[in-house]
């Protein structure tokens, strides 16, 4: 654990080199920073500014962009396909992140409460995280196969008739939500494990003196002290869920009847199948606005760590 210990040392130590290091070497500071800032500026920030510009134009790649004011945004507000994709994304996010929080925290507690085979269990449970989303899509299409894939076979064992998971609107969205839970929970389990381990033992000892039981200990000691970790998990899980693309694209291509047509998929279709760059940019701005709310919390968490004691 020396790795994490060094990181913690980095956080505890105030990054304030003495005067000697300062002015003379500041030029080197800029030089070391240039490549990263240049790449991120050219390929992340400038594109975003351009998206804002294109969102006010009509642009099909073949004739030059034409300024149309707020037309794209007004169109979006009344476009049933887009509204449905916003709804699909919202349902997907809400439906997946809440189970992910509960399951990943439970898994973290579970892993920490046993003493033997901890590494083995953690390693095996972590396996879904290392798979490409494309491989995940192949795998789950196989598992959801109607009528005799593995999921339906297991349901059959408890007497439930086979479900055509990917071809009816309600079950299709549920199917990709279950995949999200399967793949995201182990990832956040690891973050929760680190957060739980960072809570000093003394709090629990003090709690024991006051007569806590497992439930009050969790509710009054663990949860409040886990707040920063929890906040980060909430933010990251929402952002990951908002970005989902490969799984719905490959499993249902947004169908049936638009039930899994999440916003990134609709942006892709509008831009690269119908070549309506202006409209796609307006959708991107919408997704950006939603993501920004959550990202700002994450950026505040990241940028203040190391500055505070």
């Amino acid at each position, binding site marked *: 654990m020396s790795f994490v210990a060094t990181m913690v040392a980095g956080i505890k130590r105030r990054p304030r080199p003495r005067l000697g290091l300062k002015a003379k070497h500041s030029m080197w500071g800029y030089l070391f920073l240039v490549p990263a800032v240049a790449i991120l500026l050219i390929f992340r920030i400038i594109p975003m500014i351009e998206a804002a510009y294109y969102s006010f134009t009509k642009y099909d790649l073949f004739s030059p962009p034409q300024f149309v004011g707020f037309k794209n945004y007004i169109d979006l507000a009344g476009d049933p396909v887009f509204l449905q994709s916003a709804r699909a994304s919202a349902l997907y996010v809400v439906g997946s992140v809440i189970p992910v929080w509960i399951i990943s925290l439970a898994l973290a507690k579970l892993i920490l409460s046993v003493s033997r085979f901890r590494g083995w269990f953690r390693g095996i449970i972590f396996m879904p995280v290392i798979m490409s989303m494309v491989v995940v899509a192949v795998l789950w299409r196989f598992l959801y196969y109607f009528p005799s894939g593995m999921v339906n076979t297991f349901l059959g064992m408890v007497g439930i008739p086979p479900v055509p998971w990917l071809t009816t609107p309600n079950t299709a969205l549920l199917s990709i939500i279950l995949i999200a839970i399967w793949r995201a929970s182990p990832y956040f389990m690891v973050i929760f494990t680190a957060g739980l381990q960072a809570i000093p033992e003394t709090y629990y000892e003090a709690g024991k003196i006051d007569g806590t039981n497992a439930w009050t200990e969790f509710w009054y000691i663990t949860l409040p002290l886990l707040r920063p970790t929890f906040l980060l998990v909430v933010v*990251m899980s929402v952002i990951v869920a908002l970005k989902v693309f490969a799984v719905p694209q490959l499993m249902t291509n947004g169908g049936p009847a638009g039930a899994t047509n999440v916003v990134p998929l609709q942006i892709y279709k509008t831009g690269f199948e119908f070549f309506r760059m202006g409209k796609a940019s307006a959708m991107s701005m919408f997704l950006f606005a939603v993501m920004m709310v959550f990202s700002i919390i994450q950026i505040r968490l990241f*940028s203040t760590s*190391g500055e505070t004691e």
Partner: protein
Amino acid sequence: MTARLSSRRTRNWFRNAILYGLLLIAASIAIVPILWMILSSFKYLEDMFTVPMTWLPDPWNWHSYSDAWAQRDFTRYFLNSLFVSISITVGNILICSMAGYALAKFRFVGRQFLFLVILSTLMLPLEVTMVPLFLIIKELSWPNTYTGLIVPFLADAFGVFLMRQYILGIPDELIEAARIDGMSEIGIFFKIIMPLAKPATIALSLFMFREAWDMYIWPLIIITQEQLRPITVGVALFMSNYTTDWNQLLAVAVIAMTPMFILFVFLQRYFVQGIALSGLKG
């Protein structure tokens, strides 16, 4: 006294049985689908969805891999993925470490501001910027090039954050001593900072390799030439064209996950630490 002790022992045994039982269930949910995929890739088509289900292939089909491989130029796709992923990983190790070092150990005007600028790109994932980024790449005539696949991803906000956090923990005295000895700034970075930051570098490279290997939406947009396709797009195209040949499709998927699997088996510790770090908050 002994009665109480033994009742406590029974209770502990009972508690452990429940905990390990739950862990076994969780581990099964994670791993059984993957094992099922691997086993099924060795089955014949007619044994694919038997009722009742049979775990082991009977007989084993040793051809599904070579048959699948013959359908498309998967060797090329695989090598493309490897080349692009390694390039992105190496680039990020260098660029993110330099930026992290600058932010951790130098004082200059606008440092905090530039750190915030870098972090702000966390809210600009490809899913948001794909349309304008494509237009920029088109402007540069980079569609259908390795450059177009690699260069936009040579720096990463999380990577910079990770390296900065780690380098903050390296004592200033080491850097000052090297300066007094007359070591150049570039020498200090390569000979002192990089070796000391090795654990973070390994975590970062696993993180970047995983992201790059997973790359799907971007090559889908900018690559139309067969010989530049990465394995992800290859698998996806195979899935949309050959859905009935499940054993071959699963075989290709298994091959596509092998590099990550190998890295994970050997470097699991660093994987887990890299992710754990993103949750560390001072």
